């Protein structure tokens, strides 16, 4: 069915919480350590291959990479950063779903009050918001698919929720 929505996940990745007081050398240091450019525009994310870096707040980011990379990346960050910062391994804390297909946006709209229309939520945007009765970090990717990153403890609930939300036959009855 060409209209069908594909739901993948929950998937585990290496996740690092980065909190750092912005300083002029921060973007370069982060880019060197992670190989991803530091997003400084609110609610955006950058990707490089399988790595991602999400803006969560003026001094807070989430770095993702394939599972297993957490220790090496943490070490790289800790040696590259200067000043006041905190790097924490939160690989166990986050699980990631992926929604793809032309009607994936409708699944998001059933779940969250945010505006996901391309005019408001172009690829490269991300937002932390209410999702069903939990919370999630939702990111729009260049291929038009979406990542829904959620706390591990909510993954069972959200997997059931997303399966139900994606269930509806795309053609109206």
């Amino acid at each position, binding site marked *: 069915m060409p209209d069908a929505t594909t739901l993948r996940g929950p998937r585990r990745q290496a996740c690092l919480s980065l909190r750092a*007081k912005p300083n002029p050398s921060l973007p370069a240091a982060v880019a060197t350590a992670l190989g991803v450019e530091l997003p400084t525009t609110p609610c955006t994310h950058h990707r490089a291959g399988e790595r991602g870096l999400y803006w969560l707040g003026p001094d807070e980011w989430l770095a993702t990479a394939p599972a297993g990379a957490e220790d090496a990346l943490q070490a790289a960050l800790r040696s590259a950063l200067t000043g006041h910062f905190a790097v924490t*391994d939160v690989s166990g804390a986050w699980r990631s779903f992926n929604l793809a297909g032309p009607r994936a946006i409708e699944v998001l709209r059933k779940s969250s009050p945010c505006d996901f229309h391309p005019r408001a939520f172009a690829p490269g945007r991300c937002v932390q918001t209410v999702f069903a009765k939990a919370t999630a970090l939702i990111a729009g990717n260049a291929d038009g698919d979406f990542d829904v990153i959620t706390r591990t403890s909510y993954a069972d609930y959200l997997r059931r929720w997303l399966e139900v939300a994606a269930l509806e036959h795309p053609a109206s009855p």
Partner: protein
Amino acid sequence: MGAGGGSLPRPSRSAHPTAPPAHPTTRRLPAGGRIDRSQPLRFTFNGRSMSGFVGDTLASALLANGVDTVAQSFKHGRRRGIVGSGTEEPNAIVDLGDGAHRIPNQRATQVELHAGLVATSGARRRLKRFAGAFAGVMPAGFYYKFFMGPPWLWRRWEALLRRAAGLGAVPTGADPDTYDKLNHHCDVLVVGGGPAGIAAALAAARVDARVALVDEQNEFGGSLLGAPQAIGDAPATQWVDAAIAELSACPNAVLLPRATAFGYYDHNFVTVLERRTDHLGATSPCAPRQRLHRIRAKQVALATGAVERPATFANNDLPGVMLASAVAAYLNRYAVAAGTRLLLFTGNDNAYRTALDWRRAGRCVVAVADTRASPAGALVAQAEAAGIEIHKAHAVIEAIGRKRVAGALIAPLSEDGQRLAAKPRRLDCDLIACSDGWSPAIHLSSQAGARPRWNEEGMMFLPGAPRQPTVCAGAVNGAMSLAACLADGAAAGARAAHAAGFGDARPRFAAPPVEEAEEDAARPLFIAPHVQPSSRAPKQFVDFQLDVTAADIELAAREGYRSVEHAKRYTALGFGTDQGKLGNVNGVAILARALGQGIAETGVTVFRPAYTPVTFGAIAGRDAGELFDAERHTPMHAWHMARGAAWENVGRWKRPWHYPQADETMHEAVVRECRSARQDIAMLDASTLGKIDVQGADAATFLDRIYAGSFQRLGVGRCRYGLMLREDGTIFDDGVAARLADTRFLLHTTTGNAEAVLAWLELWRQTEWPDLDVYFTSVTDHWATAALAGPKARDVLRRVCDDIDLSREAFPFMSVRSGHVAGRPARVFRISFSGELCFEVNVAAHDGMDVWNALMAAGEPFGITPYGTETMHVLRAEKGFIIVGQDTDGSMTPDDMGLGWAVRHGKPFGFIGDRSLALADHRRADRLHFVGLATTDAAAVLPEGAQIVAASTRRAAKPTTPRAMQGHVTSSYFSPTLGRSIALAMLTRGRERLGETICCPLADGREVSAQVVRPIFFDAEGRRTHA
């Protein structure tokens, strides 16, 4: 054309292509309408099998089948027929389906007919029994008056009323259908898909705004569907089709038919109920029956139209009295003639269309009673030319008939319309079409905060000045002609789009020309005078659904109800599911007259959501059944499931409560789990505990200010119990904090308080102490935690951990070590909430299950038992460890709880709550103290929450009431270890009363006595913990 009434001039507009037979025998016309005659449908109404067509509503099909009475009225049990053709219908309220599928209180005028539809007049049978019994004895303000009478009288009445009240019957089972919700954002939301709404949507969509157009009917077109009008050279419906096709092709336009905007809230948030499968009959499980659309719009364009307003006259509730617009809609849209001999009662030109359409359909127009002395509009001229008799300055004052209208009394009006100028006379007819004017559908505008304003010229309430980004267009704005609606709609759409950032406010859309008949001024009557006063005349109904009469409103005015809001509540005017869409304005006019004031002065009641009733299913959406709430699961959840755990909800977490084996009771399971922890080894899933990683050069300084205790000098690798206080010195949270490095700590919080504590830390860092370099990261979800508790904990852990020295000397109580457990990186805390030797093993969530299994396997030779939260509670209560939120209630200080040792005064900066601890009230001698209670009867377990009073003395065998409350029980269990009941309590001056016997009176009248003891029942020296 033109059978039944002499020769008629051909009307200017194109009409039905084939002429009807001269003497119609059925109410269904042989041709015309928007029904699909190739698709007949069978349905049942009150058990009778009937037929209709695809495209019918239940109401049109009932009319076509000759059904006059569709319900009996709420209070008086009078026969009621269909009055309207849409949302305004007050009478034709039916229940659909049966059993679990039963849907009560549906308006037959809005129910699309489908094969096999089963409809029942909801209140019919029950009301028959009570009708008459109540009629004379339930005046306006019935409830008010009865509540002022003796209470016993009300109780008698209540029993009777409860049986009779209500309109429908509830479903007999759980709702088998599914519902969901969809969020929308748009630049312009257009409510109403009539000519004005369509024009507005087109104007906005053509400048590329994101547009949503919602309409409650099954097809767009609104009033155009029921009137044979032309736009340009073609029938109006062709223009509608073209416009909808254009909008459908817009990628940024959303069209929602069968969707009612029922709530308009702050920030231009509008809720819309879409009926997706109701018209199909059978539903499929994956297609939601109804969908609640939650629309946030930059601009809302209200094109909600207007509802025709009938004048009030005696017996106006007789079946066969209808709105003129409804008579026309049934005729033109559904090809149903609602009767044979029509009497039109109006005070405006517009309604003459109904008489002309009726005549054109070959039916007999008995006469027109026009309230005006000399109406001179084009339509009036057409009617006169057609030979229709017009009684000028006349009103219908009473409908005559038993089961249905058989005639009407009409009489000439005095100049002011308040009295009759001559005696009435009777006309024979079976259908009275009424139009006294129009009521714009201002409900949504009123919900959005705009106070309606009375328009003296149009004699109608119009939307007031908007308090949100709202524009109004078309009939809701008082634009009553088609040309005006199209122009107004286009302008409003363009204006709204411009305000949302699109286009230049000039519509890129010119309404095609519409031929309009020039209309003369209208003369609304609101209520027709009668030869008798209202109180003596046959009932003149204002609100059909709740049986409110003109006499009721006049009575309310006489009894002092001057405010329209009070009069509404006193009489129940507009209280029904129809929100008084037909009668409200007449009611206001009658009240105004009774009070001797104007309508503008009297005002109208505020409308509230919902515009029309909404199903609870739609409000719940998918948040039902197993998705009712967001459950949080630990990484070991599946293991607990497989082990048959009974669950306890802790916040949103599912925690194992206990693990019953075979047919064990909870008590037996807890006894076994406690024994295992105290004698051998037991394991608890403690993953839910809140965990916050704190990093930064000022971490220790920050924690010193947040915690009542001191953390500056805590050694790396050591842990300390900490209390967080609020500014007022009361306990906010507690937990163990560990120093992982010089500049890094890990904080434990209570399970339910994890988010609140993190927010608390951020609040103080960001608003009060931004100079401190410290960051917090929640790691609650990152770690899976297994607490190994029991004398054999060390032996078990040693089997799966070889890189941490677990000896007492190398790894003392209250310290933390890093290493590997079962080959996975682990952080092990030697902390204890059970009073036993305990290691809390923390691994990343994805390693949790494997490590848990490895620990279970390692513990097997030692008889390891998983234990749940109930055992955890018993073990900690035996040790007197508090649970914040259970033993404390937000008013307790550390001293109250005997935790003064965890407070360190005199720190360089102090700590939150420090100074408040010196408040005189916090130092009162008679404060509640945390104590233990040992019941005199060792087997008697006190209920938690039990109140404590002084023990009764022998002298006062019968204790006086009330007895002063001295405290209450906060935790209470049976302790398997001690073989007796134990309890923790807050007791006035408790610490000074050790050894005293107190008493707990229980709800069942028993009194349980207990001795006040120290709040620690087991291993007071802590030898086991430190083992």
